[in-house]
């Protein structure tokens, strides 16, 4: 056989027209992965970055050392936030199709990541999300109307019409502004965490990116600084298997887990079943305590699946089998928590239907209110003078002149 160098191109397991194939996915049985002490040295817990932390088993029972032992009312709140996120997403997707907004991004199938993590953190912890973390807003209680007004770029848009839909922010709620450029928030979160440590405050920073975005230099910058300064930060890679059309192998996930990059940088890495509300909650609690007590940062890889398109601008049937999501081995996070609650005797189909109806009603009413403040296409509109504000703290003369020029152009 001829020996020669070769170029390896990662091969998708299945493309349109083929059978979904998840044989590449390595999992561990629920309850099988040990839970180390929060002060464990990163080098001693490397297995956490290769195995898969799971709590909910196939019978919907919480098992093993990572069981966070949450009370049923807390689980019910988690279910409510996840369900609200999903219903909100569906309605906003429809609004985009109706032309009320230009763009939308759903987090279908990934709801447990934001909701469980949001609940496991303190309200004062600072969040640096990506664009598929709307569940954080549900947990922290931002009124839906506010989110909708941003999506509509209307007169009450928190971004004053300057950002694409979904790029929310909330200073009081301690949720950082979403850029739209990928991974830039990762080193910023580390810097925020370093500042907290410098000031002697015990709030931590938490940030999220997708596995595709982990290819950016900013990922490595963040990992390096987090590790060098042992910054009180949790860095999350939401591995939903897909960048727009390329699977996780193109981001480097084919040879080794993304979580394993944690130990590579000398920090804890945990690979968790991202569709298991309890497991996500538990690893976040572990990592948060670790960060808060000076034991250092953690990289968490959430193994999940992007159930919907990347955004309203792409059609996933062009690059993956239509029934891929249905065949995803780790199931649906909402359904799994629902079944767990039912198994506990703390939930029922009737209560679920009633909750669904209540949340749909809430979304509908919020929407009715939001559109009163305008949509992208129908008035009322924001004052166009606003476009010249906030470039600098004080408006410079050049912008004042340009504002006057626009006013003259429009005859106002």
């Amino acid at each position, binding site marked *: 056989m001829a020996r020669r160098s070769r170029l390896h191109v990662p091969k998708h397991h299945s493309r349109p027209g083929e059978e979904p194939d998840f044989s590449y996915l390595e999992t561990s049985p629920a309850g099988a992965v040990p839970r180390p002490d929060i002060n464990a040295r990163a080098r001693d817990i490397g297995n956490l970055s290769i195995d898969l932390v799971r709590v909910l088993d196939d019978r919907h029972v919480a098992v093993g050392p990572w069981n966070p032992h949450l009370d049923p009312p807390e689980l019910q709140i988690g279910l409510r936030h996840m369900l609200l996120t999903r219903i909100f997403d569906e309605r906003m997707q429809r609004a985009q199709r109706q032309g009320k907004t230009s763009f939308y991004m759903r987090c279908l199938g990934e709801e447990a990541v934001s909701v469980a993590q949001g609940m496991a953190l303190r309200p004062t912890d600072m969040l640096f999300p990506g664009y598929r973390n709307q569940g954080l807003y549900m947990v922290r209680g931002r009124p839906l109307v506010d989110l909708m007004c941003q999506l509509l770029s209307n007169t009450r848009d928190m971004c004053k019409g300057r950002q694409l839909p979904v790029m929310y922010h909330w200073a009081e709620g301690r949720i950082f502004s979403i850029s739209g450029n990928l991974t830039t928030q*990762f080193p*910023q979160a580390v810097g925020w965490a*370093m500042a907290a440590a410098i*000031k002697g405050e015990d709030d931590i920073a938490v940030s999220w990116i997708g596995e595709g975005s982990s290819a950016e*230099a900013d990922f490595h*910058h963040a990992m390096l600084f987090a590790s060098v300064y042992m910054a009180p930060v949790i860095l999350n890679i939401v591995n939903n298997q897909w960048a727009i059309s390329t699977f996780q192998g193109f981001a480097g996930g084919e040879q080794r887990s993304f979580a394993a990059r944690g130990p590579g940088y000398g920090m804890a890495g945990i690979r968790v079943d991202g569709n298991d509300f309890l497991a996500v909650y538990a690893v976040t609690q572990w990592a948060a305590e670790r960060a808060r007590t000076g034991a250092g940062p953690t990289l968490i890889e959430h193994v999940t699946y992007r159930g919907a398109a990347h955004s309203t601008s792409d059609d996933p049937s062009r690059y993956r089998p239509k029934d891929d999501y249905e065949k995803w081995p780790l199931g649906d996070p909402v359904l799994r928590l629902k079944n767990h609650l039912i198994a506990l005797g703390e939930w029922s189909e009737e209560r679920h239907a009633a909750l669904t109806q209540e949340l749909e009603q809430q979304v509908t009413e919020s929407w009715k209110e939001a559109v009163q403040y305008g949509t992208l296409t129908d008035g009322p509109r924001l004052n166009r003078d606003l476009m010249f504000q906030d470039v600098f703290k004080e408006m410079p003369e050049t912008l004042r002149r340009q504002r006057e020029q626009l006013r003259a152009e429009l005859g106002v």
Partner: protein
Amino acid sequence: MAQMNMIQALNSAMDIMLARDPNVVVLGEDIGYFGGVFRVTDGLQRKYGEHRVLDTPIAEGAIVGAAIGMGVNGLRPIAEVQFADYIYPACDQIFSELARLRYRSAGDFWAPVTIRTPCGGGIRGGQTHSQSPEGIFTHVCGIKVVMPSTPYDAKGLLIASIEDDDPVVFFEPKRLYNGPFDGDANKPAVPWSTHPKGEVPDGYYTVPIGKAEIVRKGSAVTMVAYGTMIYVCEAAAKALGIDAEIIDVRSMVPLDVDTICTSVKKTGRCLIAHEATRFSGFGAELSATIQEECFWDLEAPIGRVAGWDTPYPHAFEWEYFPGPLRVAAALKAVMEAA
């Protein structure tokens, strides 16, 4: 008052701000224990500790990215990029994030980061230690861009930059660190102690961002420059015996159009000089603005003298540098036109 070179003046500015404001921190490569490759941060870590004067890994993008997060969390970071030539890995964080954070979040988030970086040639630095990339930054809306030419301005402008709630990219013309330099490398080096602007107050003061300074009054022509080129312009005008009004721009963004254009309207002639490459350089913006504002007062086309549109060649440093001969030739052309 004390005699300071530009390095000492910059050090004094950071020293004063570290002492005045517990939220001021300094971070960068080699800036802590060692005190910086140009000694600008000498002694600061000893005085303020490792939590406020941080040595960092060699990752400019991470330095600026982390500085933004620190700024969002209430600190006032001064990030050093060791050479302006090394700033490019940080450009996404500067252009897409630092510059736009206030805008995209409608004023709810912002980061008062000052990025200090030595620029310019004349120190045998070759093409990776000699660049003047200010024009790349002036093109980005949302950041202020300054460059001092004296120890006095360096200290006052740096304090103003640190206190500014907008991000500032602070260029330090490194050939001026130890003394004014008129572009003639064969002359003996002149220390700042012989220059009036080497007199620097010991304490706190600011030089406002956005104000140019007339460094020499004159009536025949307006020479607009900044950084090292101020001294080259002075030498060229003197050599030709021309009564030039020389303006130190100091702040490129925001730009003091009034001071510049008032002068050009008075003299009717204008020469712009910078070390940076010519094509699409900041001189083009100056020229366009002056033309728009002063067209009917101009007696000759506006002249521009700059570095050649090549990388900065190591072995041909003085042929590249827009020294007094080239500036004098350009000045002569502006004086003789029409």
